Each structure stands twice: as C-alpha cells, then as structure tokens.
C-alpha cells in the first residue's frame, strides 16, 4: 500500500510519496531519443490530437507541441484547473479546438488516469499496488470544484484518504521543516503562520495555528483569478506589442505557444537577475522582429495585480478571526511564501514593504511544498482542523413572496468535520405555501451587513421539488408550474443538509405527509 500526497496545480502536478519518514518526489518518466527522462513534475497541460481524437497529457503533451505540423494536428486546452470553477454536469469546454467541445469532467477523469499511470511507471511502486492519496485543492475552491476533483480522482482508480487545502498542506510541510523531521521536536512545536500561496492559477492565503501535531486553520481568503497564468498573459501581450503583433488576433495555437514562451521568460527572472525579456517572433513563425520588454515595466503592471493579494493578507492577519484566536501580526512566526509564482522577486519585495515586523520565509521547494505537506498528512499522525472558506445558502422568498432573502445554511468559517467524525447537518422544517418549491442555492465569499451575499457569488443548482402530494417526486417540473396553494399549509416539508469533511454538500427534501423524498448533490449542478 503506497501513501501519496498529490498537488494538482494549474501548471504542474506534483506527487510525493511517504517512505518511512522520508518524502521523495515521485518522478514521471518519459521515453526520449537518449533514453528515459525523469521529471519531478507532471505538466497539467492537456492537448487534443485531432487526427486520433485522443487526449495527451503531461510531458508528452508539451513535446508534441514542438513537432512539425503541430498547429494543424494538435489543439491546446490550457489551464484545465481554472475551468473547474465553473463546473456543471455535462459542461463542455475547448470549443476553440474542436467545435463540439469536450466534456470537462471526462477530460479531468482522463487526466487523473494518465497521472495514475505515470505514477505507476515511476518504478517506486509494485504493479497493481493500491494507491492511497491525500489530494489538495485551493482554499478558495468552490463546492463544484471540490466535488468534480474528488470524483475524477476516485473514478480514475485513486483512493482518497483525505483532502486538504493547499495552504494547509504547506503549513504542515513548514512545521516539518521547523522540526527538521524530528518527531519529538514536532510534538512540541508552537507557531502561528500565514501561508501566502501564489500558484499558477489561484491565490490563497491562510492563517494557521500549529500546536504540536495539531494544525488549525484560523481564517482563509483568496482570489480565484490570480496567478502565474495572469502574469504570463500580461507578458505575452507586451512581447507581442514589442514585435507589433496583435495578441488577441493570433490563432489559438499561436497564442498558446506565445504564452508558453512568456512563461519561460518569466521563470528566467526567478532564476536570476534580468533587465529585459526578449522575444524573437521568428521562433514561433510570427514574422521577423525581435522585441524586448523591460523587467521594471513588467513588474509595474504586476504590482497592480498583486496589491489586492497583499491587502487580503493584511485583512486576514488583522481580521476578527485572528483577533479572537489571539493572533497579532507581531506574534506571527512567519509569512510562508509558496507556489511557483511566489518565486518572482517582486512578491517578497512587496510583502517586506508592507509587513516590516514579520519574518518572510521563502520555501526552497515552491513546486513541491504542497504535495509534501499532503504526503506528511497521509502518513503521520497530523490532526488538521479546516474551515469552510465560503458561505453556502439558499435564496428563499419571504414576507409572502414579496421579496427574496438569503438563508445561510453553512457559514464561512464553520469548522469542517474530520473524516472519522459525523458530517455537519442542518435541518429545516416548514409548511409550504405553493405546490412546488423553488430552491436556488448559492455560495459566496462574504455576506454584507444586510445579510445579502456580497463577494464572489456563485449560483448552483435550482431545485424544483413538488410540495403537493398529488405530484409524484421525480416529475419533470418547470418554474411556470408554480402556483400558490394555501390549502397545503398543514403539510410539512423537511430539508436535511449534509456537509462532509471535504465541504461537499447534499440536500434531502422530504414531504412528511407521505414520506416521499429526493436527494440532490448540490454541486453537480
């Protein structure tokens, strides 16, 4: 039985295994002209081979893009993880590469299958050895993203021991680093850290209290659309301007290649000092010009993007949750910088400017820190207390249907149960006033003073449930069938909500008069 930590990232996926107190990165092997080549990362890139109709993943996907005639034959589906935020059952993506599009859940399932096959090829595990994994997702991931990620891994034959948020995993890795792998020292560890996780597609920040082997997420926040992908896009646009090319006018394949080039250029800044970034249009067959973009000008643009992230961290450290947990900025052990994009020199510079009295710790493993934390969680007696990062609720009609009101079912900051604990439950009973109930579920990052969803609102399933016993449960219903029915006032309906350890919610609606009920997976949408 192998125990693994998997960090499914926007740009790269990293797998770390637990080997009796050591946590080696699982290599991904690719056959090349000079023999097998091993890499620590499995690129999260997805490419469609139009000739065979097959999807290609990982390093193989990267390689086929440089082959002659690649543009005609291959289509690039970039940043699959970012698309998961808008997951709904049967949602199709990639219409720019194939007109009918691809089923999002099926693509992710195939990706997970390819990742599993690559893990098995590493030579670390015996053939058919069961894999027990701990997978991670962004702290700010919405319910649908959690739902489809978990389902896809399971469907691909990967057993999930636990899930955890990316910053929480990094906090576990940080504690291991502080204790230098010494268990006795780890048991006595006391620290409070803020994890600043700037990845390829998402930005998350979490305040974590470490008390020996117990980790408590005090508060968490994030920005859904901030990460290396956005930095690459800005650079690609500037490079295109420098050689007088209209970036938005490029064909999808050319755009994807220019974005890959921009990423390489951006990573060169992280590797060492650079004054300017260059682009020879001829390299991608886009003309003959050579353009340069000064790093200073590029950073100035990035600063504007990063300011809200720094502000989120500031609010978190000085927020109500931190205060009630007795954490002040001067008490913080460190701000721990993880994620590939935090390697950009601009990021620690901006943080140091804003947080003068807090120690900044840069990880030496920006790509593997999260997976390593997940692997430690899979093997050691780590106890992690996570919270719901978003409020989940339902829009109802109040005051005899004259206005909407938001009924929060599970509020942000609610403690999530452990796997061995019973799930969170919430029960509501009422007598209906209509023949059909129309329940509109949504998630949000914040609720304003008036009790209305205010930030990052995402609407999920609209459920139509027949309150009238004359209508069988499971009938196809439409909102225009709803009519007032005062005679149903003596009937009772019960809604039972269950939120599991991963923050995935299901609701069972029951007519108490005849006991008929239906269970809905909210985030399946």
């Amino acid at each position: 039985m192998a125990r693994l930590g998997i960090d499914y990232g926007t740009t790269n996926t990293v797998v770390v295994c637990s080997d009796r107190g050591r946590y080696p990165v699982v290599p991904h092997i690719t056959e090349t002209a000079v023999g097998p080549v091993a890499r620590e990362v499995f690129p999260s890139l997805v490419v469609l081979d139009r000739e065979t109709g097959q999807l290609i993943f990982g390093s193989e996907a990267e390689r086929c893009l440089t082959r002659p005639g690649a543009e005609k034959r291959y289509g690039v589906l970039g940043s699959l993880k970012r698309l998961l935020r808008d997951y709904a059952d049967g949602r199709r993506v990639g219409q720019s590469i194939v007109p009918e599009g691809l089923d999002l859940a099926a693509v992710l399932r195939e990706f997970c299958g390819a990742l599993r096959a690559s893990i098995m090829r590493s030579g670390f595990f015996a053939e058919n050895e069961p894999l027990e994994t701990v997978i991670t997702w962004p702290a700010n991931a919405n319910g649908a993203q959690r739902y489809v990620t978990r389902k896809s891994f399971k469907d691909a034959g990967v057993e999930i021991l636990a899930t955890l948020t990316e910053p929480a995993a990094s906090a576990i890795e940080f504690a291991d680093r502080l204790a230098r792998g010494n268990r006795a020292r780890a048991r006595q560890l006391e620290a409070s850290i803020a994890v600043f996780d700037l990845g390829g597609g998402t930005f998350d920040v979490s305040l974590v209290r470490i008390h020996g082997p117990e980790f408590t997420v005090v508060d968490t926040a994030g920005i859904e659309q901030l990460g290396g992908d956005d930095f690459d896009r800005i650079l690609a646009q500037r490079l295109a301007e420098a050689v007088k090319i209209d970036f938005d006018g490029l064909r999808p394949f050319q755009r994807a290649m220019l974005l890959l080039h921009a990423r390489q250029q951006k990573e060169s800044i992280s590797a060492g000092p650079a004054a300017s970034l260059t682009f020879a249009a001829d390299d991608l067959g886009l003309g003959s010009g050579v353009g340069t973009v000064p790093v200073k000008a590029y950073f100035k643009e990035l600063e504007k993007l990063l300011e809200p992230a720094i502000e989120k961290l500031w609010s978190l450290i000085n927020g109500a949750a931190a205060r009630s947990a007795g954490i002040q900025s001067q008490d913080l052990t460190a701000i721990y910088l993880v994620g590939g994009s935090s390697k950009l020199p601009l990021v620690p510079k901006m943080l140091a400017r804003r947080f003068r009295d807090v120690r900044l710790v840069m990880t030496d493993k920006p790509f593997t820190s999260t997976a390593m934390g997940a692997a430690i969680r899979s093997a050691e007696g780590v106890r992690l207390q996570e919270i719901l990062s978003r409020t989940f609720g339902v829009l109802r009609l109040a005051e005899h249907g004259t206005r909407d009101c938001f009924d929060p079912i599970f509020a942000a900051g609610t403690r999530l149960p452990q796997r061995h604990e019973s799930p969170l439950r919430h029960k509501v009973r009422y007598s209906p006033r209509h023949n059909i109930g129309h329940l509109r579920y949504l998630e949000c990052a914040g609720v304003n003073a008036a009790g209305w969803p205010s930030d990052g609102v995402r609407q999920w399933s609209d459920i139509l449930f027949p309150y009238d016993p004359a209508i069988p449960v499971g009938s196809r219903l439409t909102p225009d069938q709803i009519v007032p029915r005062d005679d149903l006032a003596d009937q009772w309906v019960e809604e039972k909500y269950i939120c599991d350890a991963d923050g995935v919610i299901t609701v069972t609606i029951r007519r108490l008069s005849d006991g008929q009920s239906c269970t809905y997976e909210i985030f399946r949408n």
Partner: protein
Amino acid sequence: MKSAHARKATDAPKKQKPAQTASSAKSTSVTLAPAPRKTERKQAVSDILGEIRELRAMVTKLLEPPPSAQAVLEQDVDSLRRLLSELLEKRMESVLNALVGIRMLAATGAQTDWQGVVRRLDELLKELGAIEFRAERLDYFDPLIHTVVGERHDPAAPDGVIIETIRPGYRTARGVVLAKAAVAVNRRK
C-alpha cells in the same frame, strides 16, 4: 438574481424572516459560536471516538504479522539507492556548473591549460555517474532534452530539425536531466 417566477414562491421555513436567517444557522449544531453545552458534549464524544479509532488503527498495525526480513531489506536498499542518487545528482550539478563556466572561459582564449581542467571535470562527472548525450543530426527537437541556442539554414533538411549539437547535455542514470543539450535547428528561408 431575482426572477419573475421566483417572486411567486413563498415557501420558506416557518417563522423565517430575513433578519432571522442568520440566526437560524446559529441555532443549529453546525456553527462554532455560541456553542450550546450539548454541542460541546457531542464534540467531546466525537473527539474521543476519533482517538479510539486512531488507537485501534495503531493496535491493528502492531498486531499485523511483520514483513519478511527479505522484503524489509529490499525496501531499505531501494530507499538508500534513491537517496544516494539524489546526493550524487547534487554533486554532479555543481561539477557541471563549473564545467560550463570553464568552457566559457576557455572560449575567451586565455593562456591557461583550460583543456586539462575541462578533461578532469569531464572525468569527475563520468565517475559520479553523469551520462553525456548529444542530439543526432536531423532529430526532431525535444523540449525535454534540447534547448535551442542557434539556427542554421539547410535547404535540404526539413524545417525545425536539429542540424548541430553545440554543447552536449547530461543526465543521470535515473533519467534526471542535469543540462539539456544546446542545439541549432534548421530554419528554411
């Protein structure tokens, strides 16, 4: 958010008012504060049950028959081999960096026996287990093992293929690429 059909529906929990919606969540057992005693007891029981489960898992593990000595030995050898490879890779990388630096100095034509130093570093790399590799002429460019540093114009060769290896690449026996081979690719005008 509002819609015409939604306005018709009035089904909501009894006594539900907008101001009460937030408190309705508080009255359930799902929120942290203010926690009624019953919830605390429930939590304590749940924690104890969790501890018992962990203890049971530990005891079950202890009662399991120990793996055979041969299996443990094989696993240890495997782990050690991996550890050794990682250490060697780190050494190789520093030697390789020195080699690249000296090659650059040698190219400046300074009056020193750079060739001798290069030869010795090459031998050291070989001893550590680094495997030198070159690209074959007319090979397809492979981003995993090649990096483009120049262009050539050969009308007889297809576009994009490798024409020349300018600097060899190095990899370890485990397959980790320490340095990609620097190549010149064909650009047909």
